[in-house]
């Protein structure tokens, strides 16, 4: 990872902080210190005129997520890749954005963890949760953008972030997802310059 830096996602809901505070207080338990999503390494490389992403991501799920997974609920995993054009004065516009979606599920009958890549449709099963999470966290040669689409002389930054959501519930159950925020585990953005 080159020149990777972190920043907190700019939230547009600061005004709702007071209201959400009530909800936060109602949480069953606090998040453990080691829980979360950590991007151990991330790098982009140009190969054959295409920029590829290699990344190693450690998914440390919280108790709720683990319990939900073992209870058969689907974990939705989203790896967001954002390419921004660097400017000096005004804000940086998003040049391109790619979202890689996965689903992780425990299959009780076979006692195996199923990992599906929703973008490619591939599916793999793993005998253990650790193996499945390790496979989920290993990103190799993920095509990001064609180099020909980038302007010469411009500077671009790449940022990635992984988010784990417990299954998107429908109807009245959807309220749960938003009332209890430990149902969503969001990593920090990691950004680095696209070295050309």
């Amino acid at each position, binding site marked *: 990872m080159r020149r990777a830096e972190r920043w907190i996602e700019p939230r547009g809901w600061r005004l709702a902080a*007071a209201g959400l505070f009530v909800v936060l207080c109602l949480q069953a338990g606090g998040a453990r210190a080691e829980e979360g999503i950590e991007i151990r390494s991330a790098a982009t490389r140009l190969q054959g005129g295409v920029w590829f992403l290699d990344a190693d991501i450690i998914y440390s799920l919280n108790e709720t997520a683990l319990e*939900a997974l073992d209870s058969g609920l689907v974990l939705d995993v989203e790896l967001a890749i954002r390419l921004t054009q660097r400017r000096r004065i005004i804000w940086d516009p998003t040049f391109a954005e790619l979202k890689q979606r996965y689903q992780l599920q425990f299959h009780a009958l*076979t006692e*195996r963890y*199923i990992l599906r890549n929703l973008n490619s449709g591939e599916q793999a099963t793993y005998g253990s949760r650790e193996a499945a999470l390790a496979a989920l966290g290993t990103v190799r040669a993920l095509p990001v953008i064609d180099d020909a689409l980038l302007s010469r002389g411009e500077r671009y930054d790449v940022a990635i972030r992984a988010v784990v959501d417990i299954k*998107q519930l429908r109807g009245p159950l959807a*309220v*749960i*997802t938003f009332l*209890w925020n430990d149902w969503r585990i969001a990593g920090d953005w990691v950004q680095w310059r696209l070295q050309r």
Partner: protein
Amino acid sequence: MATAALKRWGLAALTLVGLSLLVLALLFLASTVENADRFGEIYNWIFLLNLAGASILLVLIISNLVRLVREYRSQVPGSRLASRMVAIFVGLAVLPLGLVYYFSVQFISSGIDAWFDVNVEAGLGDALDLSRATLESRMREHLDATRQIAETLRGREDLAMAAQLEVLRRGSGAIELTVVGQSSRIIALSSDRSMTELPAAPNDEVMLQIRQGRPFVSLDPVRDSFVVRTAMAIPSGHPLDELRVLHALFPVPERVGLLANSVQEAYAQYRELSFLRAPFTRSLTLALTLVLLLSLLMAVWGAFFFARKLTAPIQTLVAGTRAVAKGDFDTRLPMPARDEMGFLVHSFNDMITRLAGARELARQSQQAVESQRAYLAVILGRLSTGVVSLEQDWRIKTANEAAGAILGVDLEAAIGRPLAEVAEGRPLVRELIEVGRGHIDTGDFEWREQIMLRGEAGRRVLMCACSALPGEDGAPDGFVIVFDDITALLQAQRDAAWGEVARRLAHEIKNPLTPIQLSAERIRRRFLGQMSDEDAQVLERATRTIVQQVEAMKEMVNAFSDYARAPDMEIVHVDLNQLVAEVAELYRVREIPVVIELSLDPEVVTVEADAGRVRQILHNLIRNSVEALEGQDDSVVRITTRGTEEFELRAVFIMVEDNGPGIPPDSVDRIFDPYVTSKPKGTGLGLAIVKKLVEEHGGWVEASNQAEGGLRITIALPADEGARSAMLRREIRASELRRAHA
């Protein structure tokens, strides 16, 4: 006022915003039921809106509560009723809401718990185990088959494997057989699937297990069914040979797969619901609590709102009533609605309109009465007749100017006071009261009488009439006494009679006097020489006496003639002070032992009068005083002149005072009558002629005894034509002028 209106508008706007936010939040909630994905986008807004709505409601409630408490303490009308209504409304809202909330939470908790049954969970677990056991036996079978195939392939060359592999796959019933070498290199492959894509190589987990010397078998879910995946190392002839792995996929019968899948899904759904039970219960309880809180706040605010709405017309009515009590009949209350309160307000407005009309009528009536009263006052004021209305207790109700002038007291200033109180020191009034009481005390309320009053300035004759004012129950509510001063009228009549007497005397007596005198003289001349001395003396004395007495009678008749004579007035400008000085000088002779003092007002320049008449007036007055002082030492006659411009007319006063014996009090009012005299000398016509001459000028004369002794005669003469006309028309009364002079 403006601040209150601004506050009211502000509260209304706040209320509208709060309610709009709540409605918006409810709409958002409704939209999330249809589209749950949107909930993620707007749930923050929903919370924010709910929070804002609740906050606004809370602010409204607090402000309403503070206002109500303040009004209650200030005992604002309607505040007690509003407090009671708010308490009742809140009680009515809180109790059912609390009950609904309690039972809802209980139903949610117990209802959701009822979904999960231990037996169902155990049964699903057993079914899962059974399915798993069934599939595991198949897995073992397929693993054995894989092991046999691997044995069959032992020591085979790579190239020979491909053809044999197809035979083995068909024989084993596998879907796919793959031989993989180092680095996931596919050595041989047999599959009944289309070859559009390469089969997936055994993953790290498989390879790890095989390297550990253990065969791999797993059941992989594929869509609605399953496949059994096996992997095993192909035994090699030599330890240094490349590791080759046989990777096989076996189908699971469709029926078995469907059943197993059904069991799996049922079990998964149950576990999912079981997992969601707690958060779902908490979420519903929280949502219910929020809804309850908002409902409660809305109910409380609604209680305030409707209480205020209901009591507002009452407050308006109270304010209107107070305004009317203060006399503001222009107040009109706004109509609240077409309900009972509206009817009440309408009735109130109608009543106020009628009251205002009645008041206007009363005002007009009062105005008319005032106008009549003023009209009557003007008439009474211009009347020369005195009119006094009295209460039953003889308090003065009204009195006109003439009444005061006649009685010599300012009755208009004494309105409201008892007449008896005014009469103190006023003999005229006192006598009038005595006469009046004499009638009224005997029940004679309607009487008419000519009464004679004796005041300081002499006798006054009043023609007096009394009428009772009609009161309730027939009893008189008071009296009206009307009186007129007829003293001057009577005097005039008397003067006219005396004039006629004088004229007749002059005519009837004067004529025979001359023949008598001539006859007496002839008798003396004819018979004086023929008689003896003694008789001649007698004749001489007798005829001389006759002649003398005839002369005296002639003189008397001439005086009568002068009294009766009324030659034309010759009005000229007369310097009064000079005239007084000239006349006075004639009496400053040795033969007249009287000191004449003059006190002349230099302001009195000229008067328009008949100089001869004025001179005669002065002569008569001075002579009268001199004759009265005859034989008295230190005799002094003082003549004073004073000018006045009271009542916008010019007049002069001439006062002649002496230090003589004065006149008897009972003769004061008759001193100006002919032949009324207290002196041994004189014809008795001097002062009568003075009075006649003064009245010919329009003036008046009066006599009074001085406190220190002596007689004072006061004459008022108009100084110009205007004053003379006014005084002749009696527009200015002698009494008024007398008061001004005093």
